[in-house]
């Protein structure tokens, strides 16, 4: 085992990094397609996908940015609303009983059916895509915020009460910090769903975006182009997720140790 592991720490860190895994996957992809002579219909070579991406670079770049914007706006709105809803539910049990079931029902509505409504309500605007992304984001954030606040250590609550703490003091000094790790779990779930939401939203009418490129490629049977969009979506997802992980490490660094 030790002979297989590179000796220097730098090499070992490289081996463990996600970048290395991605490169290994890319290499395996390329080699498998060439070596096994897979038909491009099932799986085009990565090099072919990259070449195709380069040929439509301006459109791809603009679409990427547009979808990223929709995703970020939808995510921000969903995260903010989800946190607020979770906090409200945890402090107003009556609200939880009355409204939370509606939240659950809302998530059982297929997002495609919802998308049609969104177009009727908001037209072909940026807002329409943001709302679709929002629709998929807020639920996991709500659930995890609620759960995080509910699982606050009762003995810590008792300690704070014995100091005379109530209301906002209790919330900001104890409940919120101890719920943060769980809230971050909700945000991680939300960011991926938000991307799905904005892409699906674009299917209902738009001229720019990764979702648009995907629909066009499917309609004109451009298999390689579909793969271009898939790789682009994957990159965006990875980017968003890693930014979130960085933020998490900054604000809840204590979690790893306790």
């Amino acid at each position, binding site marked *: 085992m030790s002979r297989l592991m590179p000796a220097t720490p730098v090499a070992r860190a490289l081996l463990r990094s996600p970048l290395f895994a991605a490169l290994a996957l890319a290499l395996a992809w390329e080699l498998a397609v060439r070596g096994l002579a897979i038909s491009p219909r099932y799986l085009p070579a990565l090099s072919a996908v990259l070449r195709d991406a380069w040929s439509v670079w301006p459109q791809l770049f603009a679409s990427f940015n547009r979808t990223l914007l929709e995703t970020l706006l939808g995510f921000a709105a969903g995260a903010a609303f989800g946190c607020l809803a979770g906090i409200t539910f945890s402090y107003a049990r009556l609200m939880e009983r009355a409204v939370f079931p509606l939240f659950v029902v809302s998530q059982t509505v297929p997002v495609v059916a919802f998308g049609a409504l969104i177009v009727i309500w908001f037209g072909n605007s940026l807002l329409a895509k943001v709302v679709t992304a929002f629709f998929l984001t807020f639920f996991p954030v709500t659930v995890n915020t609620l759960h995080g606040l509910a699982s606050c250590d009762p*003995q810590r609550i008792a300690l704070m009460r*014995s100091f005379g703490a109530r209301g906002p003091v209790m919330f900001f000094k104890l409940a919120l910090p101890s719920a943060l790790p769980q809230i971050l779990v909700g945000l991680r779930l939300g960011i991926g769903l938000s991307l799905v939401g904005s892409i699906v939203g674009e299917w209902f009418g738009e001229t720019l975006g990764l979702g648009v490129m995907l629909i066009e490629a499917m309609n004109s049977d451009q298999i390689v182009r579909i793969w271009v969009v898939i790789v682009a979506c994957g990159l965006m997802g990875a980017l968003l997720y890693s930014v979130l992980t960085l933020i998490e490490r900054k604000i809840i660094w204590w979690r790893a140790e306790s």
Partner: protein
Amino acid sequence: MSQLLAQSAAAAAAAVPPGAADAGMPAAEHPPPAPAAPALLELVNVWKRFGDAPRQMVAVTNVNLKIAPGEFVTLVGPSGCGKSTLFNMIAGLLAPDSDGSVLFGGAAQRDGQLLGKVSFMPQRDLLFPWRTVLDNAILALEVEGVPRRAARQRAEAMLPEFGLTGFGKHYPHQLSGGMRQRVALMRTFLFERDLLLLDEPFGALDALTRTRMQHWLLDLWTRHRRTVLFITHDIDEAIYLGDRVLVMTARPGTVKSEQRIDLPRPRDPAIVTAPEFVRIKRRLLDEIEEESRKSFLQEESRA
């Protein structure tokens, strides 16, 4: 008041098996402190029952006790005897049943009125992992509204006394068990109230660390002279620390007897081998033994 006492006497007679009814304030070795000094804390016929009639669980029955200002009282009893329930009631976290009352500084305390009046330290250190040592120590001060900077300065000045010099900026996970416990104690001390309520603070520590911490706590107490009620299940600890040791019975818990400890202060840790210490310990052990035998017999006769 007299009506209340009459009621409580009736309640005690009705609910407690014969022989245990007069256990509230037994004949002590020495007379109780002169009534001239008003008690800081007084419990009169305190009960706590959980659940309803058929499956009711009585955690604490008929507890009467008085603690004078500046006194160090230890409460010893087997685990599960309702010590923590009693503690939560004194901290104001749990309301006693309506047939008894808790008096603080001579005034009866209703539900929740004790919150914020007693420095309470639970068994677990309960440090917040996202706060540094210093910020954990000033938690109660922050709740009280003391500006953070002023609070930090006060805490900073106390670090040496708690053996935490240079650790102010450390986080709880970087500390040993004994140090974490000292941070928790410092947090309790900084919440300056007349009564310190310590619930087995050294229970989770290894024997050597515990001895050191006990010695250190006595030192601290000698300098600050706060009133302390200290719960433990360790008889040695109870005798070594206390002016008085209260013995609690197994569930339903009540204060069975009290023992005044006249060992001279300051006490050296080696005092645990002194004949006087051993004599007291034997007497307390006998009492606890008798108690457990009694409850054992009760259970057998019921079966």
